[in-house]
């Protein structure tokens, strides 16, 4: 329950699961390479995700160079441009955002926040990372095969994805893409089972579900969603792989290519889109819900105030997660599906705005009259709220069929989803790294570099994506290599495109500063101590910083309250940690 009333020790129920220390690794390889410690796996996940994310960042630069200065860079061919678009999207959504939120933050924070010694199945958890790494390597390999990676767009829509007109379609690009996705799903499932079971079954004494920090609620709900949504992508990938390799026609209608009738016939391309988006829309929330959870905690800690409406926040997370499974076809209004579907899916889509708005109001009300510290995590949290609201509002446009039809496949859509599920979650990732880096390394990240990083990223992201809405509204379609000056554009956009591209280059460049900060502060950062933000949740109460293998020393912590006892009247400090048995009525007397 969300009560702040404490319970006596004797009121804590007995331990239901024996406290067993996971076996320590003794060899160097067991500790640092094939580590079974969730904290180390988290760092492996995050490092790999960041590395492949840098590739995606460079790809976005190349795309913007072409769009901003068409014809200037002759190594960017139309084929290469499509490959950049495809790989940028796929890497960012799956291999960076999903992996870093669930594999990175999930692994690091879940055992610490619920008061467990490790994930419940450390060996399976380790396998999860290595299969993820294999998926990334297969993905990277596609850059080096003849024909290059697939250029089908990140939605991989058939029939074009497996035809020779698409880069990598008739060669191995698409095959490696599908194999990599299948591997990713297998790897994720191994990790996801760990995250879900750890949250459900391995909490410490006193840690009820309704005392979990919202970070855990977000990651947990996203994990369950991923376990139910990735199967659709898995099936879609297997079937498309068969279409490409075995010549089946699941998704392939009768086709004529270069004047020649292909052997395909009778398949349904729309079936792929349904499967893909049955995964694809929950995927948006698989990325967003951990961000929602983390940002709630960042705001509460750095505004020294309890989260407004904790219970409502939990239910909003769960309801958003459930609703996101029945909205997928709003990505398909122009796909040729039955128009009646549009009515249903537009309705469910707009209903999601209600729990989402509840969350936004609660963040604002948490800030209201709080003791707001404009630390770096708080700045990024505020940046998240602004960009998320902005992207959410354009979502209302696109969720309505009649408004979506003219806007579909324009740069307006690109601006929308970058704002809402690109910039916004990445803001949270940055904020979370600034917030938890002291726990992970024992040192603070450099403040000056962090300030530059935040302001350039925040203003720069606006400079990139705000004008892009306008570019889309005047009629520029997305995914076009170059459009020249067609008559349907209601205003010229050349100058604007050059401006957006310049801003994108600057935003990208400042991320290098962030990476430098991460490595520089390892050695030169200020010593942080165990709990530099004076936060209540369990991960800040570990006996050592950084926490050792097994997390808690000899005794597991007991939990007496929720995670948001900030500025409690009468308390000795302005925060009361979750494992602090302080009782308000007894005048601060410890039990």
């Amino acid at each position, binding site marked *: 329950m969300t009560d702040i009333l404490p319970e006596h020790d004797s009121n804590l129920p007995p331990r239901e699961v024996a406290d067993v220390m996971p076996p320590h690794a003794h060899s160097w390889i067991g500790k640092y390479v094939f580590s079974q410690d969730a904290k180390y796996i988290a760092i492996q996940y995050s490092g790999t995700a960041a590395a492949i994310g840098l590739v995606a960042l460079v790809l976005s630069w190349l795309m913007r160079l072409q769009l901003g200065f068409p014809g200037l860079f002759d190594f960017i061919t139309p084929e290469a441009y499509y490959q950049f678009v495809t790989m940028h999207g796929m890497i960012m959504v799956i291999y960076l955002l999903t992996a870093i939120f669930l594999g990175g933050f999930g692994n690091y924070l879940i055992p610490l926040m619920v008061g467990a010694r490790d994930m419940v199945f450390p060996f399976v958890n380790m396998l999860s990372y290595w299969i993820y790494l294999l998926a990334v390597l297969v993905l990277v390999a596609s850059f080096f095969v003849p024909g290059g990676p697939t250029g089908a767009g990140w939605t991989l829509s058939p029939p074009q994805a497996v035809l020779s007109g698409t880069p990598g379609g008739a060669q191995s690009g698409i095959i490696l893409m599908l194999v990599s996705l299948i591997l990713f799903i297998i790897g994720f499932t191994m990790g996801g*089972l760990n995250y879900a*079971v750890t949250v459900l079954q391995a909490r410490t004494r006193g840690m009820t*579900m309704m005392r979990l920090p919202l970070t855990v609620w977000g990651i947990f709900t996203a994990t369950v969603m991923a*376990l139910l949504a990735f199967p659709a992508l898995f099936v879609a990938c297997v079937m498309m792989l*068969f279409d490409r390799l075995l010549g*089946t026609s699941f998704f392939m209608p009768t086709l004529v290519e270069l004047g020649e009738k292909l052997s395909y016939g*009778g*398949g*349904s391309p729309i079936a792929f889109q349904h499967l893909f988006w049955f995964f694809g829309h929950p995927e948006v929330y698989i990325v967003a819900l951990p961000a929602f959870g983390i940002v709630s905690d960042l705001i509460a800690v750095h505004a020294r105030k309890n989260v407004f409406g904790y219970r409502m926040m939990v239910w909003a997370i769960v309801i958003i997660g459930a609703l996101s499974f029945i909205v997928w076809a709003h990505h398909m209004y122009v796909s040729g599906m039955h128009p009646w579907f549009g009515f249903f899916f537009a309705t469910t889509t707009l209903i999601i705005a209600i729990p989402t708005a509840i969350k936004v109001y609660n963040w604002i009300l948490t800030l209201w009259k709080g003791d707001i510290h404009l630390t770096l995590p708080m700045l990024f949290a505020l940046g998240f709220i602004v960009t998320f609201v902005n992207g959410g509002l354009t979502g209302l446009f696109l969720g309505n069929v009649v408004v979506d039809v003219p806007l579909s496949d324009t740069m307006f859509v690109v601006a929308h989803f970058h704002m809402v599920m690109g910039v916004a979650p990445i803001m949270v990732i940055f904020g979370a790294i600034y917030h938890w880096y002291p726990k992970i390394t024992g040192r603070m990240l450099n403040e000056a570099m962090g300030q530059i990083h935040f302001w350039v990223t925040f203003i720069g992201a606006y400079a990139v994506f705000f004008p892009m809405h306008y570019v889309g509204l005047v009629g520029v379609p997305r995914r076009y290599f170059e459009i020249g000056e067609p008559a349907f554009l209601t205003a010229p956009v050349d100058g604007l495109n050059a401006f957006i591209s310049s801003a994108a280059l600057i935003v990208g460049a400042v991320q290098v500063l962030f990476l430098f900060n991460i490595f520089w502060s390892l050695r030169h950062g200020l010593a942080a101590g165990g709990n530099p933000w004076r936060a209540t949740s369990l991960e800040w109460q570990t006996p050592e910083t950084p926490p050792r293998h097994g997390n808690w020393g000899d005794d597991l912590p007991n939990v007496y309250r929720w995670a948001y006892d900030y500025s409690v009247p009468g308390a000795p400090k302005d925060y009361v940690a979750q494992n602090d048995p302080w009782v308000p009525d007894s005048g601060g007397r410890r039990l």
Partner: protein
Amino acid sequence: MDHPLQGQDQTLLQQGHSGFAADWSSDQRAFKKVSWGKAMMWILLLSDTFIFACFLVAYLTARSSTNAEWPNASEVFALHIGGRDLPLILIAIMTFVLISSSGTMAMAVNCAYRKARKATAALMFATAALGACFVGMQAFEWSKLISEGVRPWGNPWGAEQFGASFFMITGFHGTHVTIGVIFLIIVALKVWRGEFDRDQRSWMSAGNGDYEAVEIMGLYWHFVDLVWVFIFAFFYLW
């Protein structure tokens, strides 16, 4: 009769809806009687259910969107025995074998509750044998259809999605059965050697001297069996 695994629980359990709410809002464990391994298997099966559901829905979509005629399952899957065609006879036997294997698995789990070591192992070996029998008959069915000209990209009787869906869905299910047989044999050997009777942690054993791995194996096996019922209904009977 008391569930033999209940002994490890000291918590008093409430019944009904109020118990459900109390468990979820209590600390440590949301499912009070459920071990980590069993919870993992349930969640894995939930995820796997979505995979099979997507396969079946995709098959139904392919079947309804193709413009060629769908081959008649009862003719395609008929065997010529004793001078006449018996429709679906092989599938009927396969289904019978697989459902029987679920029966022996259930008996194995029952013996595991009572820690009847030899009976548990024997029944698990019987389950594995029936499972292997099922996969063998599936191999026979595949080779018969292949010899009649059924391919993923076409067949002599109509819509090419028929062969594609058949090989994909039965292949995916057959893979599940094969994996199940392998793990049944592994767990049965461990039971036979008495590894679950020792108070020692090992692979698939929490070291608390119970036969829980058998029960978890049973969950998986019954799931594979249940999925087959749906494949049977949607693919062969319709």
